[in-house]
């Protein structure tokens, strides 16, 4: 499915369980991979992940970040945000004819993100760890 992102749910689950370092490095690796395979100039995925980080941080101050409804709203917003971002960036590179805001692609992206998040989150919860445990640095 060209134009569809599959990596974001993995990053969100890592952040939800407190694996911030792993999320950062995997995010950097995926960013290069996704930028390299795309047709647009470098920078779009950086803006996308920056938007994801900002939105998640802000929203988790006010809401319970593991709530299913919260995640549904987050992924819905992300699907619209990603489409809008790609439209703007494609337009700036004179490629705007190929990208249109259509409900179908937004809903496909939302469904992919949400279903993948449910699968990964439940897998993590069942087999790896049950809840977020703050990992403190050992005292010197």
């Amino acid at each position, binding site marked *: 499915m*060209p*134009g*569809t*992102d599959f990596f974001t749910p993995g990053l969100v689950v890592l952040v939800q369980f407190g694996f911030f370092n792993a999320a950062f490095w995997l995010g950097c690796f995926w960013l290069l*991979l*996704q*930028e390299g*395979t*795309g*047709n*647009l100039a470098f920078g*779009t*995925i950086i803006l*996308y992940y920056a938007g994801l980080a900002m939105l998640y941080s802000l929203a988790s101050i006010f809401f319970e970040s593991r709530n299913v409804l919260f995640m549904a709203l987050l992924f819905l917003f992300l699907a619209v945000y*990603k489409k809008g971002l*790609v439209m703007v960036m*494609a337009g700036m590179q*004179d*490629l705007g*004819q*190929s*990208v249109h805001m259509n409900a179908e692609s937004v809903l496909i992206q939302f469904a992919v993100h949400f279903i993948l998040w449910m699968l990964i989150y439940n897998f993590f919860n069942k087999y790896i760890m049950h809840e977020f445990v703050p990992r403190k640095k050992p005292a010197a």
Partner: protein
Amino acid sequence: MAEEFWDNYVYLVDVHQENRELRREVDSLKLQIAAKSEKAAFAERLEELLEFTSPPGWKSSGLRVIAHSYGPLGVLESIIVDKGRLQGIKPDMPVVAPEGVLGRTFKTGLNFSTVLLLSDPNSRIPVVSSRSRTPGIIVGQGQNKSLTVQYVHLNAALQEGEYLVTSGTAGIYPKGLPVARVSRVERSQIRLFQLVEAEKLVSVMDREEVMVLENVTKLRTGYLNFDGIIRDFSEEDMLLYEQSGYGF
């Protein structure tokens, strides 16, 4: 009785082992046949490519299709091929198959390039019809959709079934390469131009190898600026270029 026992039991002790070895050999031979069939199909495809004759002043070289559009930023109708800047590929080089035009190179990496297909809505190719010589610009409408031909005058005698070939006026494609076949022509009183649809001649999903064309004439329209300044060309070069029949 003893002879029967010998033939049916004792003599067959090694048969199981032999059977296993033969089965292993059959598996190996099956793999070899698959590899040879693949090679034969590859040779056939290369033969087909070799039948293509480059237009005068252009040199063709083969490219292997290594990927189609993918990833979250795969917004264009495009393919990725296995040659890039290190192999002499530059942006805006025509990519063709023996049946017709596929598109042009768009982004070039060191060893890979992206080809913008003619089905992408950003692709525009100036064409002329083969019989009535009607000019127009062929524009993509996306995957699995027909192409449209824009700016075809209402009086133009364009007919369904005509082939559209490159007009050579954009400076990217050589003149005369087949691009599409007209599938629908509609004349309307309320439009300034005819509504023309065309079908691609090459299906990119079927292609594993394609060709890129390089302009080897010394004068290229890409070198011309809008103010029409021609730099670094002698009169002899100009004369050669005019004789080649590829005008601006």
